[in-house]
């Protein structure tokens, strides 16, 4: 349980990302803590709430229109990972803006809004509406544009794999987001993630989030058919951590843009590995699904003393 000598950061010390000061470096990842409100029903003797020590909640990805998501089953478990095919089920941008984001503001949850769309102008429009409606919010810190959901059928598969698309989406969002942090969440399912990160950096992001899920498949032995109706899903959890570490390292060393690391982080040791490579913050995904206090626990365990 002891922290290595090289670790000198206080994860609860505010830090700057683009135009914003974030309250901390341990975040929850998109899609694994809903919209960041459910945690208020969770108690633990060791924490005031799941939000204790959290730098940000990245919301479930919100799309311009509500989505019902993919058919069940949506999850498959492997010995050290999970494969999901939720299909971006979400309430839609309208309801999110009218109800969810104000509720997060009222509850004081530090929030990064995750957005997905199929065209750059949709990103621009959503960001503009956010900027207009939530200009006075003090807990809304940024936007993460999800350029990488492997589960969505309508072309999403290849969407964020092209540096030109990454660039166009980032530009469209950045134009309308002068005073909040802008992050681009990158797909690992490409030959060269550093190229995507460079494109995002040049187009004006304040950081990239890496990685989203790795394309994976599980087979049902009885039937010989894929477990998930859509065949493929997004692989996450401890099994993908070495891949995430490699991708983060590639970005840090080759693209020179701040990286918010995500992929297989379950405890403070896992988080330290990404900080060691130069990540500025980390997100907790699958582990947060298992334990609503996972991120809070990591945050606490990274404090010296």
């Amino acid at each position, binding site marked *: 349980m002891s922290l290595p000598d090289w670790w000198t950061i206080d994860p609860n010390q505010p830090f700057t990302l683009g135009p914003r000061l974030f309250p901390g470096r341990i975040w929850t990842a998109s*899609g*694994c*803590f*809903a919209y960041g409100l*459910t*945690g208020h*029903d*969770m*108690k*633990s*003797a060791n924490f005031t709430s799941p939000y204790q020590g959290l730098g940000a909640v990245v919301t*479930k990805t919100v799309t311009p229109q509500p*989505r*019902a*998501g*993919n*058919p*069940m*089953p*949506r*999850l498959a*478990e*492997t*010995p*050290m*990972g*999970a494969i*999901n095919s*939720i*299909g971006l*089920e979400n309430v839609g941008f309208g309801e999110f803006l009218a109800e969810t984001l104000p509720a997060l503001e009222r509850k004081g949850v530090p929030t990064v809004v995750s957005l997905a769309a199929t065209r750059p102008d949709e990103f621009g429009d959503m960001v503009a509406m956010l900027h207009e409606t939530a200009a006075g919010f003090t807990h809304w810190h940024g936007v993460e544009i999800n350029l990488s959901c492997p589960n969505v059928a309508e072309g999403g598969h290849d969407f964020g794999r092209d540096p030109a698309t990454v660039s166009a989406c980032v530009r469209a969002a950045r134009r309308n987001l002068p005073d909040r942090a802008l992050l681009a969440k990158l797909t690992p399912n490409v030959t060269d993630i550093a190229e995507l990160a460079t494109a995002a950096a040049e187009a004006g992001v304040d950081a990239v989030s890496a990685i989203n899920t790795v394309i994976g498949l599980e087979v049902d032995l009885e039937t010989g058919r894929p477990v998930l109706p859509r065949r493929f899903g997004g692989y996450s*959890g*401890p099994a993908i951590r070495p891949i995430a570490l490699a991708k983060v390292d590639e970005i840090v060393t080759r693209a020179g843009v701040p990286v918010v690391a995500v992929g297989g982080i379950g405890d403070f040791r896992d988080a330290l590995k990404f900080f060691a490579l130069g990540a500025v913050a980390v997100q907790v995904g*699958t582990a*947060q*699904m*298992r*334990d*609503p*206090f996972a991120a809070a626990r990591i945050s606490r365990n990274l404090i010296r003393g």
Partner: protein
Amino acid sequence: MVDPEIGPAVSCDGVVMSNEPVSSGLVRLDLELDQPLSFQPGQFAMLNLAGADPLVFSRPFSIFKADGRRMSFLYRIVGRGTRAMGALVPGDAMTFLGPLGRPFPQPETDQPVVLIAGGVGLPPLAAWLARRSDHPGLEIQAFFGARDGADVPWDLLDDRWDVSVDSLKDVPDGRRAWKGLVTDLAATSKDLQDGRNRMVLACGPTPLLKAAARFAEARGWGCWLSLEEHMGCGYGVCKGCVVPVLDPDKGPEARRNATCCQEGPVFNAELLAWKRPHRSQ
């Protein structure tokens, strides 16, 4: 019927007190949690192995009993997670998140109730029944279905339970079991022929739930079912456990996804969109 109050879910640690078979197919796990917790019958907990390599997803189990810090479960070994649970010995640590989900409703009047449980569907209904023992006026008929006589945890069932089995094998002396589906046992039960309007509460495998819903619908009775959906988080954050339900506010044909873990696992059978499957987008 009224929905009982449900409080917050608690994340805490537990220590295995005992983990012993109560029948050929069911194991009773008693945990001592690090704090006392109460629950409403029908609620469940997400359990996991403690230590360096827990299961990626915790596993949902209905709460069978709670007494101070002691909490009991009945489970069947079916796969990787329950196999690992089967190897736990007293003193081993587990993680616990619960109680979770919406419980079975409690009757406000003296409307009689029919309980239909199959296999590992027993714990929530046994808990429900135990909770009613302070309410002697209520008429309750309880039916439990198992594979065979050895699969029935006889010592856990008081004499209010009528037992059905798929095969009459291994029924102990002095015990009574009916051969057939538990819903057929209920359907043929004389006690239910008096024409009174009853309430059906059911828990078990999906075919049982569907049969229970048909049984209730045929009689015009209300029916609540506890669904078993695969779960990722158990507390509403992953959308991995959705159940298509009717959305009467939006129109008779409207459907929406309900999370089994948060809006369920107990659903009013009327709301379930079983008949016309929900189309995903």
